[in-house]
């Protein structure tokens, strides 16, 4: 199987600071990294490659600095990487970016069997590039993937995909390649590369491709797809919570907070005559300090 993963170098969400008063985003303090959802997309591709065999091709569209994202991809285990760039791409919207990626993938002798994209980037989060790319390539797509398993059916690989819907609903699908998947950043935990892989990636030469030279590529006339009205940080209401155990990992701690902490909720069923019940109820309320 041949896998392709589309990556983006984006500001890490923890480095984004929005001034609470002016609503201004301080771009100077951005720390650019491989977009979290894209890292999960790559990890998913690498795991399938390990299971089914094949090769992983990682590509990005971006300026020199985006090379870093591809180095991470190489270190994690991508077989080949390529950066697509032309100075005019600074002004491209998601549709044109998708068109460029499509042109690059079509330039190979055959399309990859599976294409992975992050569901959305941490900066503008339009979630458009993946779906648009599927359309340009004429591929079926599954968005918001939060579960992925591969099996075989009659000698052909079949994917069991869990997809995230609104309000906590899930959708389970069976799909066969060729296909495009956009991956949510909770799908998996991207691997921490080994030292030899990290060293090799740091020293690798990264190929660059000029999108304007690709056959069949033309910048797409884009409608103004997004209008930014206001940028501000969400302000959740304060909420009193029990103190979770410090020795736990954040994940477990959050679990503790959500489930109500170490003191579990208890229910007690009392049986008896109405008088006894009333007496028991009063006793209980007094004991707990309600009356």
């Amino acid at each position: 199987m041949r896998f392709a993963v589309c990556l983006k170098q984006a500001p890490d969400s923890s480095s984004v600071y929005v001034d609470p008063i002016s609503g201004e985003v301080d771009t100077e303090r951005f720390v650019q990294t491989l977009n979290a959802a894209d890292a999960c997309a790559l990890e998913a591709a690498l795991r399938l490659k390990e299971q089914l065999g094949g090769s992983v091709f990682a590509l990005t569209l971006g300026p020199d600095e985006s090379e870093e994202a591809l180095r991470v991809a190489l270190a994690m285990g991508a077989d080949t990487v390529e950066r697509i760039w032309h100075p005019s791409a600074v002004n491209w919207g998601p549709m044109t970016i998708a068109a460029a990626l499509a042109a690059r993938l079509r330039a190979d002798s055959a399309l990859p069997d599976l294409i992975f994209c992050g569901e959305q980037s941490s900066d503008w989060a339009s979630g458009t590039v993946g779906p648009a790319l599927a359309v340009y390539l004429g591929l079926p797509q599954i968005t918001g993937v939060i579960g992925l398993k591969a099996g075989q059916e009659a000698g052909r690989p079949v994917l069991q995909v869990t997809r995230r819907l609104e309000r906590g609903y899930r959708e389970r699908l069976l799909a066969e390649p060729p296909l495009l998947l956009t991956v949510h950043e909770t799908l998996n935990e991207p691997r921490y590369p080994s030292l030899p892989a990290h060293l090799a990636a740091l020293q690798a030469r990264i190929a660059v491709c000029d999108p304007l030279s690709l056959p069949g590529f033309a910048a797409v006339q884009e409608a103004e797809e997004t209008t930014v009205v206001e940028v501000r940080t969400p302000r959740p209401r304060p909420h009193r919570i029990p103190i979770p155990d410090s020795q736990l990992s954040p994940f477990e701690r959050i679990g503790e907070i959500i489930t109500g902490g170490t003191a579990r909720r208890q229910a007690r069923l009392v049986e008896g005559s109405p008088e006894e019940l009333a007496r028991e109820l009063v006793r209980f309320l007094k004991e707990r300090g309600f009356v």
Partner: protein
Amino acid sequence: MQSIASEPVAMQPIEERLELVRFKVDKTPHIRVNTAACQGCDLTPCVYVCPAGLFEILGGEMHFSYEHCLECGTCYVACERKAIEWDYPRGGWGVSFRAS
């Protein structure tokens, strides 16, 4: 003339300061506290010296978090009972200063 210094100082909550700092939090803590050793420690230097205010005594028990650690190492130097096991987080994780 009225003295200004004797006026109460407005303290900025440490959480507000830490909001300005970039952390990439790993799943496994890089600080471990042998909280049993904290029993009966009334000096609790860690509570005072930590520049991120990560240590707190709540209900007589030591509670700490590692997520907003500035990675200075002051806590383990200050702890007389050597109850704090402190190591750097995994490479690339933890705090990243950008404007200091």
